[in-house]
């Protein structure tokens, strides 16, 4: 290798130091919260927890998992994520496919029709009034339908489809294959990296979103997890002391345990999809 100057070596050490610091700053809040959720009441109340749990207990977790409202909202979110993501991915793939084919009359007009919505929208109130007129208020569908197709994701899939060799489509056509079958038996399996990426994006979006639910839902029993969390952590309207049932658990531990239980499912799946989404983001970054 090349000889590096002294300045460069100093920079390298400094750089590694900066990166370690960054890693620590990123992880600290998460570790801190996890430790709080596992620590004993006395230490939590004395604000003694920094990085490691003291006086291990699991009561906080048992408490929150046993809480009926938490269980209900957790279940709502799972259903929402599953149903919503399935619809998102299906619709995105189906609309991206025709737009990725060689020019057919009106294609660019359709594209403009989509892209326009990325920059201009009706806004909060007209969307709310639409939901009201469609009688979708206070229903799970109000959280799913308005965001059925994310145009950015659709373009990502469209670009991926365009990179599939034309000869595959041609030969399938000669064999008398219908377009819908070409899509699902040739393009879909070939595009799995891109499709996994948007699946992850949509799923994370549903899992983490709360704004639509805040606007459209009224009934507590329909609340998704994030709204429950919002009431508990931010509005503090869910009585944490009541949840902790006056056992030997600090209210803060119950809050921390809720955060962990609500966040871990997403964090667990993402390392498996990591190599896909890094690729997916790159596809999005490269222009046609």
């Amino acid at each position, binding site marked *: 290798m090349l000889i590096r100057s002294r300045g460069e070596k100093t920079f390298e050490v400094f750089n590694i130091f900066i990166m370690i610091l960054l890693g620590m700053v990123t992880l600290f809040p998460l570790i801190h919260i996890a430790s709080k959720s596992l620590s004993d009441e006395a230490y939590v109340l004395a*604000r003694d927890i920094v990085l490691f749990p003291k006086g291990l207990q699991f009561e906080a977790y048992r408490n929150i998992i046993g809480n009926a409202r938490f269980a209900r909202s957790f279940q709502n979110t799972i259903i929402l994520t599953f149903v919503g993501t399935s619809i998102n991915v299906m619709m995105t793939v*189906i*609309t991206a496919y025709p737009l990725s084919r060689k020019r057919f*009359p009106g294609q660019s007009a359709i594209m403009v*029709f989509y892209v326009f919505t990325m920059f201009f929208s009706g806004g*909060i109130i007209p969307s709310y009034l639409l939901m009201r007129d469609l009688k979708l208020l206070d229903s799970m569908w109000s959280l799913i339908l308005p965001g059925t197709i994310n145009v950015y994701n659709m373009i990502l899939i469209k670009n991926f489809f365009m990179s599939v060799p034309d000869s595959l489509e041609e030969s399938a056509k000669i064999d008398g294959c219908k377009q819908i079958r070409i899509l699902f038996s040739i393009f879909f399996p070939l595009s799995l990296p891109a499709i996994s990426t948007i699946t992850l994006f949509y799923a994370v979006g549903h899992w983490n979103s709360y704004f639509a639910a805040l606007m459209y839902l009224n009934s507590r029993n329909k609340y998704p997890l994030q709204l429950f969390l919002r009431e508990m952590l931010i509005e503090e309207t869910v009585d944490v002391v009541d949840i902790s049932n006056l056992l030997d658990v600090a209210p*803060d531990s119950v809050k921390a345990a809720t955060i962990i239980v609500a966040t871990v499912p997403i964090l667990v799946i993402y390392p498996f999809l990591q190599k896909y989404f890094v690729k997916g983001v790159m596809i999005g970054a490269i222009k046609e």
Partner: protein
Amino acid sequence: MKIAGGGIDNMIKMQTSRKTGQKVSQKIIQKTDNQIDQSMISRRNHSLLIKGIFKNYELYLLSLSGLIYLIVFKYVPMYGITIAFKDFNIYKGIFQSPWVGFDHFIRLFTSAKFLQVFTNTLLISIYKLIFTFPAPIILALLLNEIRQLVFKKAIQTISYIPHFISWVVVSGMFLDILSPNTGILNKLIKSMDFEPIFFMGDKAYFRSVLVVTQIWKEVGWGAIVYLAAIAGINPELYEAAIVDGASKLRQVWHITLNGIKPTIAILLLLRIGNLLNAGHEQILTMYNPAVYEVADVLSTYVFRVGLGQMEYSFTTAVDLFNNIIGCVLLFSTNHLVRRLGEQGIW
């Protein structure tokens, strides 16, 4: 191709046969021929279009579901914007409510509250632009210089974990960490004999909290695109620069940064187009009445006043104003970027 080629062949044949059969002056023939040609071509194009539509009917059917979705959930709400120019009455509906012209806009521009909210939006957006936009670029440049690949990978993986955590949870965590009584940060501040700071409830600190938590959440994720762009730079450029005796700093400036310039331009453009979108999901979970004065932005205001106090028409006017400014910013920066010789969004 075949159909089109055959068409042209036929046309040429017909043209020649007609020419030989007539005795009128050359000019007139040419003129009529041209006319016939044009009408034939347009007819031919017309039938090609119909054929094209017919041949691709499956593709149209596939497009249909998406178009219906767009019309119902995106374009119908755009029609709903008309209530900004009406006195919306919930019983009469959007269509039947009476027109009031620009009344709501006049009220908007003369209200002190709007000025405050607009200033907040602009300030928070600009702070975020100045601090959160370069952060991922710097991170990508620093990560790129790390030679220990396992370490690099590990730091990268850690850095984008927060992207997957919801704003509700992020706010919940920082409320805990920054709390003046129980927070770990204030414990540190107190241990150094300073007064505890109520970060989330102090007007002087709240906007900084917004910027810092935004960077914490998104810096790693934002760096992915730049790292991908850096990976696409031709390594021979670096070799050539080293042979020419360029220092590391010069290499970073002239090769790495220069190589990712188009990516930076496009992302900056998108960001500026979204400038007035100060991040309501974040602010809505972090703010509280104590800091409304510095934290209330257009979208949170529309949400709180519009839906909370049912001021439908007025807040739609606010939203429309926001939207139009966004579009103007996007078009003008796109124009500017193209003027400067970079590739714009379109």
